């Protein structure tokens, strides 16, 4: 199924989405592939409708929050658990909080403070991560911010500040923060840098209309740049991979604790592929995620076709179908070997 262009840079949101598109949208917005029920609901529906549906879900904002916490490196022992940040996805979904305000709340959290101890580290990280400022070439601003952190009044980034919370408020509300946010979010979703002029324009809009974030993202995800991301595939982050492999084995998404433990382990490798392979085998061997056994398959060829479609977002080639069907219909563990081969493939990692 193809998506047809409405203009040179924009796709027609009325055209239906296929498995590859649905998988990419769910991975980028929910941090996992679609569940069976979601696949039944969204497959073949117009792109615009699916995007509207997804942005209306609290779990989309929960994933957004996870991505932001990871960006700020609020993970492992610095991960906020059971704090006021827990209410952010619900408020973002209801529209009682904007994306910029949510980032401001993260900057005020105890986790952020613990992660970035001391005036120099704290102010440096705020300037770098909220506004994309290189502090080495903004030493004066850094010193003013450090003074404000320690309680000395000063004009920091154009506004009065005399406390640690003022430093966060000034940076989070700065026009550079809006421009920097749209640039990094565009790149996170399309896996391509945003043109400088587009970034300036979108940043200006977000600064002026803080509630425009969802509309901007929908525009990006209906763009040619996003179509290219879908077409070439994109490497899954470790957290997404952990959730994907659970969902693709027919289970529910894993608990937050399991996700974090596996994500943390995978983050410990420069190349996580060997450990991903190990985890895939552990899950396949475990009760609850056990694959069907060869003799259980009434039509091994159809099963192989469905597995390719679900896991890789495409149909198998003739050679692939023959080889995988042969193994699937063989001795008892054939389907497990098929699943293991696909889950440990580089193509699966780039959904």
């Amino acid at each position, binding site marked *: 199924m193809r998506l047809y262009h409405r203009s040179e840079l924009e796709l027609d949101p009325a055209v239906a989405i296929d498995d590859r598109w649905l998988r990419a949208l769910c991975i980028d917005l929910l941090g996992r592939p679609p569940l069976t029920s979601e696949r039944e609901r969204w497959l073949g529906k117009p792109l615009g409708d699916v995007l509207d549906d997804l942005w209306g879900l609290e779990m989309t904002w929960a994933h957004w929050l996870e991505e932001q916490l990871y960006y700020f490196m609020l993970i492992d022992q610095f991960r906020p658990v059971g704090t006021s940040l827990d209410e952010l996805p619900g408020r973002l979904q209801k529209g009682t909080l904007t994306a910029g305000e949510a980032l401001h709340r993260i900057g005020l959290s105890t986790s952020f403070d613990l992660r970035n101890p001391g005036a120099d580290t704290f102010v440096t990280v705020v300037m770098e991560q909220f506004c994309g400022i290189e502090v080495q070439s903004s030493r004066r601003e850094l010193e003013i911010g450090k003074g404000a952190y320690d309680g000395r009044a000063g004009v920091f980034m154009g506004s009065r500040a005399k406390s640690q919370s003022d430093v966060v408020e000034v940076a989070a509300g700065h026009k550079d923060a809006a421009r920097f946010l749209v640039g990094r979010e565009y790149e996170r979703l399309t896996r391509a840098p945003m043109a400088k002029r587009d970034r300036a324009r979108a940043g200006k809009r977000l600064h002026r209309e803080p509630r425009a974030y969802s509309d901007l993202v929908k525009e990006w995800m209906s763009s040619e740049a996003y179509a290219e991301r879908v077409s070439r595939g994109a490497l899954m982050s470790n957290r997404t991979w952990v959730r994907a492999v659970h969902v693709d084995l027919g289970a529910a998404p894993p608990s937050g604790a399991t996700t974090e433990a596996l994500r943390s*382990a995978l983050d410990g490798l420069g190349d996580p592929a060997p450990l991903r392979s190990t985890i895939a085998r552990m899950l396949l061997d475990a009760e609850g995620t056990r694959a069907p056994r060869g003799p259980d398959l009434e039509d091994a060829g159809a099963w192989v076709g469905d597995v390719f479609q679900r896991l890789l977002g495409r149909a198998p080639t003739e050679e692939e179908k023959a080889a995988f069907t042969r193994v699937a219909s063989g001795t008892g563990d054939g389907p497990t070997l098929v699943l293991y081969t696909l889950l440990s493939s580089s193509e699966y990692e780039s959904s």
Partner: protein
Amino acid sequence: MSILDHTHPSRRDLLRAAAGAGAIGLASPLAAAIGPIRPGYKTKHVVLVIMAGGVRSRETFGSPKQIPNLVQLADEGVLFTRLRTANLGHFGASMSIVTGISEARGIRDNSRAPDPTLFEYVRKDLGLAASDVWVTTSGGAQQVNYAYGLHADYGQKYGATTLDGDGIFNEEFKGIVSKLGTPRPLAGSDAERVAELRRVLRGGGPPSAAEESRARVERYILEELGRGVTGMTGAGAGDAKAIQLARNLLSVFRPRMIGVVLQQADIAHGSFNGYTEVIRRNDAAIGELVAAIRGDETLRDSTAVVVLPEFGRDADLNSRRGLDHGDGSDDLRFVHGVAWGPDFKRGKVVNDDRRTIDVMPTIADLFGADPRHAKGSVLREIYA
């Protein structure tokens, strides 16, 4: 032609030899097969320990009783008393040591450097396999970025194999492994069927070198999970795991190069006592690493160890009676460093200013690699 052509076995030889080594902990036959890095030199292996997290000289060589093992290394090697560095954040300053280029990086920047790292230079110039060059870390997700940069002529295919001790070998992950059960090894016809499916999936042809290397790393991780690294706890446990991993890797793979990047001294922001405890624990762990080298017949006279922090800390305590890093003082901008090895002078003290970014070209020189994009200079005065 590589300078190692006459002494260095092919990758196939290495893999065959390693496969024959069997269980972890057994002396590898690789060691007997490899020669010195450069003709006329004795060094075959280099361990670079970046004591990152911000460590002042006052708490190291300014308090020698705290660091008896580093003092002993200095007595038997070369001590630099004024290595100039810059406050580029822990990540940027440590990255500068491995790239040999002092450049700003965001403190929480989780991305690769644009420049090649020491590990890429030595792998590319010497034709080394991934299992010949390792990095062990303790700082989590961000630190795996030391493995390689984004330079078009180098990059991932020349990167170091990187393990974060606190990431992989954490109790939570071990708990999941215990709950789900260690995976059954693929063997016999199952292994053959998977190999055939993989061949079809990649459109034919043999597996790449990267795939073979990944399979070895997978086996290593599974065996390491059953050892003691996971159980380490307390102040500086992450650093201790990184150093212990380096010890284990030396005994298993006999790699040419191991980079160890520590991080936990940064506890100093809020706890001066915790900071000094981390320094003492890291000194002890480095002592055990060196003891293991001294006790290994094939490593004893062929391994060099280089240790340095990425930068120091402020001159004065902060309001929480901790130590930040941002005052621009000499305590922050100058650190001590040690180089110990069979080709280095003994008991030499260099009091002149040198730079932390000079360490990378010096190690590259020891390997005969050309760090063509690095800005640092070779520290020639260390050679005996």
